[in-house]
């Protein structure tokens, strides 16, 4: 039975991928500190979250059957602190939260539940969420995205998802409404210019982990794109719409083109918000800061960091500089041609392997004993003598298959 369960429920784009990668790759170090991050594959807790909320996710949900119950069982069986972390958990409804907390806690109580939400100011979260939409092969322009999230009805799928995972007071209310406020932790992401390790130290502090102990990792992160890169990928999505299956899109566009190519070494303008949206986001962020301050949650960092810092220069990604987009396109084309050439080499090697195997099979089939056996099998269907001979042969071998 876990003494303590820490539920880290978001938000996206707050350093969650890096954190989860380190938790996944250091199980022994964590266990030595009495902590378990129960997961059997890197995306195990993501699948569990899909299962909990019955979310579809481009076909990945097919791997998620029973994932939440398995996670809950692993948490319950750990006699220490268990950590559950995925950013889409912020989207859980109150009913899903109740089911989650009931399934993770020991029957009859005795498990102390803590909720952690890492938060970043809206002026950075809004463009980051649009970029995530683009990386998930959506076609929505930035202008349309901004219109939809500012629609007070929030009825579009896009808006309901955005606010489901980004509306900090609501998420904390859904997840932490039944908990003492000191068990609800708000980790703020520092403003640009802060010391590089500050966010990591905040995470480690709230999770109770020695900050330098989680040394192993792939340094897998969820890197950001600039304006021309995001504009290019969105336009590429239009070209590839419904043409490339999701698994190939994930492999070649999101992973290879975006993560391994375009997000590296970029010097282009960063995504930002237009001036009117900045004012709106600033006002909303201030109201959130005041609300959280009044709730008495445990704040790790500074609630003032929820309020946007000075705005970045506004560069409209719906009307990017064509030269910059062309340059980014060349960079992508360069990488994709190299990858295509590499895969072609792999294909040629595999054909050689197949050719060798086929030659081996042909040599085997040319052996006189094999030819007699095959003829016997072929004629057994119509010739009673051959059938009897085949039966006798199989009886001799002591098995009933060829």
């Amino acid at each position, binding site marked *: 039975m876990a003494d303590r369960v820490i539920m880290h429920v978001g938000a996206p784009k707050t350093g969650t991928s890096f954190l989860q990668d380190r938790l996944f790759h250091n199980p022994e170090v964590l266990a030595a500190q009495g902590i378990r991050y129960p997961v059997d594959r890197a995306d195990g807790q993501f699948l569990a979250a*899909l*299962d909990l*909320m*019955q*979310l*579809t996710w481009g076909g990945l*949900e*097919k791997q*998620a*059957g*029973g*994932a939440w119950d398995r996670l809950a069982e692993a948490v319950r069986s750990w006699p220490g602190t268990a950590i559950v972390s995925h950013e889409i958990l912020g*989207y*859980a*409804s*109150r*009913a*899903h939260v*109740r*089911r989650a907390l009931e399934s993770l806690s020991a029957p009859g109580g005795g498990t102390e539940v803590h909720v952690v939400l890492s938060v970043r100011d809206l002026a950075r979260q809004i463009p980051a969420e649009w970029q995530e939409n683009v990386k998930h092969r959506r076609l929505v322009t930035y202008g349309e995205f901004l219109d939809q999230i500012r629609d007070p*009805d*929030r*009825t579009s*799928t896009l808006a*309901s*998802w955005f*606010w*489901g995972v980004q509306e900090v007071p*609501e998420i904390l209310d*859904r997840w932490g409404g039944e908990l003492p406020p000191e068990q609800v932790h708000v980790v703020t992401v520092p403003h640009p210019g802060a010391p590089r390790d500050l966010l990591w130290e905040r995470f480690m502090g709230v999770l109770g982990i020695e900050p330098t102990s989680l040394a192993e990792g792939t340094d897998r992160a969820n890197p950001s794109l600039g304006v021309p890169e995001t504009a290019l990928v969105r336009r590429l999505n239009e070209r590839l*719409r*419904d*043409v490339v299956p999701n698994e190939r899109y994930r492999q070649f566009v999101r992973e290879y083109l975006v993560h391994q190519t375009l997000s590296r070494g970029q010097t282009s303008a960063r995504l930002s918000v237009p001036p009117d949206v900045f004012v709106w986001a600033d006002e909303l962020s201030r109201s959130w800061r005041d609300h959280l301050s009044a709730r008495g949650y445990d704040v790790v960092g500074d609630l003032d960091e929820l309020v946007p810092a000075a705005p970045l220069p506004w560069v409209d990604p719906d009307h990017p500089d064509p030269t910059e987009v062309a340059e980014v396109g060349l960079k992508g084309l360069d990488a994709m041609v190299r990858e295509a050439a590499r895969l072609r080499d792999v294909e040629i090697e595999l054909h050689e392997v197949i050719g060798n195997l086929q030659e081996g099979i042909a040599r085997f089939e040319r052996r006189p004993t094999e030819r007699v056996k095959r003829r016997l099998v072929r004629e057994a269907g119509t010739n009673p003598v051959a059938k009897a001979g085949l039966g006798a042969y199989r009886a001799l071998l002591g098995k009933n298959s060829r």
Partner: protein
Amino acid sequence: MPATAAQREVVRRLDGPAPWLSELVLTTPVGGRGRVDPGEGDRLTDRDLLRVCVAALARWSRTSAPAPVPATPRVLRRPWHRAFVVAGLSPHAHAVRTALAGAGRVEGGRRPTVLVVGGPLDAMVAVHWRRRVERGAGLRWRRLWAEMAARGVLPRVVDLAAVAEEWTQRVPSGSVHVLFGGSTDEVLALAGDLVGASPGDAEPARANAVDTDLLRLLNQALATAPAASRLRWVDGDLAGHLHRPWTRAPGTPTHELEWAVARAGTLADALGSGPWQVHGDVRRVVPSTDAGLARSVPPAETLALALEVLTSLEGGPPWPTA
């Protein structure tokens, strides 16, 4: 745990449901995408209410011990009957299969007469959509068309020229027949003549658009559930709820209509010039361009069906944790 405004509204629309049904609706976590816990004062959309209904139906179908489905008796093919195969995926192909089976004829055999039975492209795609959804897809009608148009190809079973071509390679010359009748009776009479049988009456394939739309939503809600729960709605004890006669086929979505008409024209040309016998007018493959035809499935209709199915459920708790 207080119920959401959407859950309460669904109970209201169920108009006096049994206590267990109210409890089912009010206590089932609503999965999938959409607004999280729509609150007081939020304008509730049909989609909000549909999510509630689908979540309740999905949870209900995860109850254990579904009623057993009687096995279909096996019918043997008579050696003196002319061998035949019905190919293609169209409403009339279904009718031909059903009618010939009703006349005691069993598909298959050596050197068969091949009946490639066609129909309007939109109707054939509707049958294909239904089949994909029955196999677990959560695909929308519009999305299916968008995929086809983007790739520029028809599904193999709908591309009747390819189907006929394939059979031409496998059976003796003159054995492949392409049938495009105007009515079901006409197609059945033609098929009967070719096979040497007297088929009875049969309805075209059932591909009710609203049923299919609800089934695809259930597929999404049951995506992480055991397959048996989903299959109850396809061919199990719950299938009757979503297997009503075809009242209308959804039209080709407006955005893809031009492509569909052009592609159907190409298909008609190919069908009219192949090494097989054509019966009827292959131009009937062109989809309807009728401006009054509904080209999507309105959520209000799917919601109405979901409420109707909920009302017709029999039983009660216990049901599993959703």
